[in-house]
C-alpha cells in the first residue's frame, strides 16, 4: 500500500519546476499576460522537449506512457507557475483519442500530439453553457458537423479539435477544415485563450468510443483542473505568506497580527487536505474504474472551489496593491476562476456526486 509520490513522480515535478523557473521568468509571464496571447512557441517547444505534451501517450506513439496521476502532477506545477499555453485542451484531445479513438485515428494523431508538433484541443461547451455529454447539441450527420461551441482553448491554432456532439459522442475535426470559423473570446485567464467555434457542414470523423469515451474525457478534465487549481492555490498561499512577512504596518510585519496569521492558517488548513482528492481521483481514473467518475467529480467540485476562495483571501491580504492590475497575484486568482468554471461549476459536479452516491 502506498498513497504517496514515488521517486519518479517527485523527479517529474522537480524537472517541471525547473523548466518553469527557467523558461517563464516573471517578466515574461507579465508580458504574456499583458498581451493576452497565451501561446508562446518557445515555451510550448521547451515544454514538449521536457515531455509534458506526451506524458500519458503510450511509448509506441512517442509518448512517455505514464498515468493520469503523473499528468495531474504536471498540471499541479503548471498551475503553480501560471503557465500560459494550450496544455489542458491538448492533453484532453490526446486522452480522447486514447479512450475512444480507432487504431487508425491514434496512429495518425498521437505521435504528432506527443511531440507537440500538432496542437490538439477540445470543444465541449455549448453556447447555452452545458459542458456534459448529456447537454451536447452540435449535430453530426453523414460526416458533416453543424452547430457551435464556446470556450474552446486555442481553437485558432489547433490542428485537431475533438468536438462533443448530440447523443454524447465525440468527433474529430481537423484544423482549417471546411466550414469552421472561430472568434476569440476575451477570457478571464489571459494565460489560456478561449474561442467560440462554429461548424457549418464541417467534415468530421466520429470516435468509435462514443459516450463512454466522452465521460472518461470529462473525468480526466476534472482531475487535471483540480490539480492545476491546487497548484495555483498553494502558490497563492506562499505568495501571501511572503508578502505578510515583508509588508509592515503599525511598525511590524502584518504577519505578526494574529488575525492575519489565522486567516492564512485557515487558507492552508482548508487547502492542504484537498491534495489527496486529486491524487485519488487521478489514481482511480487508471485503476479503480468503479470509483473514477465519483472521485473526479468530488475533486473538481471541491478543489477548484477552495482554490477560488484562497485567491479571494490572498487579494484581501495584499491590501490595495492586491487589487491592482500590476500585482501578479491576479495571475493565479484568474487561473483558479478558470479552473472552477471550465468544464462546469461545482454545483453541477456536486449534483453528480449526489446522483452517483445513489442518494
Amino acid at each position: 500500500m502506498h498513497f504517496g509520490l514515488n521517486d519518479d513522480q517527485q523527479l517529474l515535478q522537480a524537472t517541471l519546476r525547473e523548466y518553469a523557473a527557467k523558461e517563464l521568468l516573471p517578466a515574461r509571464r507579465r508580458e504574456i499576460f499583458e498581451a493576452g496571447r497565451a501561446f508562446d512557441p518557445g515555451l510550448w517547444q521547451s515544454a514538449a522537449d521536457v515531455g509534458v505534451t506526451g506524458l500519458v501517450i503510450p511509448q509506441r506513439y512517442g509518448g512517455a506512457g505514464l498515468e493520469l496521476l503523473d499528468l495531474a502532477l504536471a498540471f499541479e506545477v503548471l498551475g503553480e507557475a501560471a503557465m500560459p499555453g494550450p496544455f489542458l485542451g491538448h492533453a484532453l484531445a490526446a486522452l480522447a483519442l486514447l479512450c475512444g479513438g480507432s487504431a487508425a485515428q491514434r496512429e495518425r494523431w498521437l505521435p504528432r500530439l506527443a511531440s507537440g508538433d500538432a496542437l490538439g484541443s477540445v470543444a465541449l461547451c455549448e453556447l447555452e453553457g452545458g459542458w456534459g455529454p448529456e447537454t451536447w447539441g452540435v449535430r453530426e450527420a453523414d460526416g458533416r458537423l453543424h452547430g457551435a461551441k464556446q470556450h474552446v482553448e486555442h481553437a485558432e491554432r489547433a490542428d485537431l479539435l475533438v468536438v462533443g456532439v448530440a447523443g454524447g459522442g465525440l468527433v474529430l475535426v481537423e484544423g482549417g477544415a471546411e466550414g469552421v470559423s472561430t472568434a476569440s473570446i476575451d477570457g478571464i485567464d489571459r494565460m489560456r485563450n478561449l474561442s467560440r467555434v462554429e461548424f457549418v457542414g464541417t467534415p468530421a470523423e466520429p470516435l468509435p468510443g462514443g459516450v463512454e469515451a466522452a465521460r472518461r474525457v470529462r473525468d480526466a478534465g476534472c482531475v487535471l483542473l483540480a490539480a492545476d487549481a491546487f497548484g495555483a492555490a498553494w502558490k497563492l498561499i506562499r505568495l501571501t505568506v511572503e508578502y505578510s512577512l515583508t509588508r509592515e504596518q503599525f511598525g511590524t510585519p502584518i504577519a505578526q497580527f494574529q488575525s492575519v496569521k489565522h486567516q492564512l492558517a485557515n487558507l492552508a488548513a482548508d487547502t492542504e487536505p484537498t491534495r489527496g482528492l486529486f491524487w485519488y481521483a487521478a489514481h482511480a481514473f487508471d485503476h479503480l474504474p468503479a470509483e473514477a467518475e465519483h472521485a473526479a467529480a468530488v475533486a473538481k467540485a471541491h478543489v477548484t472551489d477552495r482554490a477560488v476562495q484562497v485567491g479571494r483571501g490572498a487579494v484581501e491580504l495584499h491590501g490595495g496593491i492586491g487589487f491592482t492590475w500590476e500585482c501578479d497575484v491576479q495571475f493565479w486568482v484568474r487561473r483558479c476562476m478558470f479552473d472552477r468554471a471550465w468544464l462546469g461549476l461545482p454545483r453541477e459536479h456536486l449534483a453528480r456526486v449526489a446522483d452517483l452516491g445513489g442518494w
Partner: protein
Amino acid sequence: MDLSFGAEYEAFRDEVKLFVSEAWPRGADAVCDRAVQLAFVVAAVERGYLYRSIPKKYGGSEQEFDSLRESIIVEEFDRAAVPWRLGNQGVGQLVPTLLEVGDEWQRERFIRPTLRGEYVWCQGYSEPGAGSDLAALRSSARLEGDEWVINGHKIWTSDAEDANFMFGMFRTEREASKHAGISYLLLEMDQPGVDVRPLRQINGATHFHEVFFDDARTPADWVVGGRGQGWRVARVNLKHERNLGSGQAMRRRFHQLLDLAQSARIDGRPASRDPVMRERLAELECLVRCVETTSLRQLSAVAHGEEADIGLPLLVAKLYGSEVMDRIAGLAYDLIGADGLLAPTDSGWADLQSGAGEIDWVDQYLFVLAMRIAGGSSNIQRNLIGERGLGLPRDLRATDVAR
C-alpha cells in the same frame, strides 16, 4: 500508487474480521457492560491486536511496529462498533508517557491495570486561570517528608468522578520560572483532600468536573520524569497524539446523516431528493473524502518512513476534523426540523469517537462544540499552523502553550 494492502494484509484483515465476529457478536447496537468490554480487550491483547507497542511485561502484546496492521485492526474494530477504547486518557496519554519517561516501578505498578480499564485516570491540567496558557497554572504541591501536599483547583476535568487516579501538573518549585516550576504528579482521587464537583455541560450532561485540593497527599516518588520537569513530560503526550485515525468515525457519522436525509421529509419527499440538501450533502461528502484521503496519506507516509511529507497534514488535522464534524452536525440539525426544539439527551464521548449507536442530533450539535475547545482550541491550532506550518512569527506572548 497502490491502494491495495496486498495478499498478506488482506489475509490479516480476514483474520481480524473473524476474530471480531466471534469475540464481539453483538453488533452495532449492543448495550455493553464493562466486564464484556474487558473480556474483548483481553482476548484482543492475547491475539496481538491491541497495545501493540507495549511490552508484554506491562500487559501489552509487544508486536513489531506495523502501521498497516494497526490501521486494519482499528478499522475492523470500529466497523463493528466494538467499544474497545477502555480508559481513554490513561491509555492514550499516561501509558505512553510512563513508557518514555516513567520510573520502572511506576510502569510496573500502573500500566497493566490501566490497560485493562481497572485504573481509570483523569487529566488534571486546566485551571480557572490556566487554559490555553497552561503554564500559568497555580495549583501547587510541596514536599513534606515523603509526601507531596497538594493545594489548588483544577477545572474541566473529564471523568473525574469515575477516576481512581489523576495525572496532572502542579507548581512545585517556587523560585523557578513559569515553565520550569512545574512537576507531573500522579495522585489518588479517593482521599479526604480531594473534592470532586460535577459541572453541568451545555448539553445538560456531566462529564467534566471541578477538582479542589485541600492538603491532598501523594507519595514523594509519584512524580513522573523528575521534579520541575512537568512541562517537558506533558509534551511527551503530544508526540503520542499522532492522528492516525482512519476517517472511519467521520464516514460513519456521515452515513448516519445520509440515513437521516433519506428518512426526513421536505415538501413531501425524502430530504435527500431536495436539490438544496443534495448539494449540501455532496459538499460534505467532499470534506469527508478530504479527511479519508488525508488519513491514507498519513498511513502511507508512516508505513514508508516518509513522515517529513505529512507535517502540515498532521498540523491541520484537528482543526479540519472539528470543522467537518461541526458541519455534519449542523446539516443534521437542519434536517430534524422542529425536533431541533427538543432538549438534548446525552449520548456521550465514547459514541462521539466511535460513531456507534443511535444519535440524538441535538446533543451532537451541541457536543461538537467541545471539539473546538478541548485539547487545544481552534485558535491555538491556527497559531500552530501559522507558526510551525507556514513559518509566520510567533504571537507576542502566547504560543509557548502548544497543546
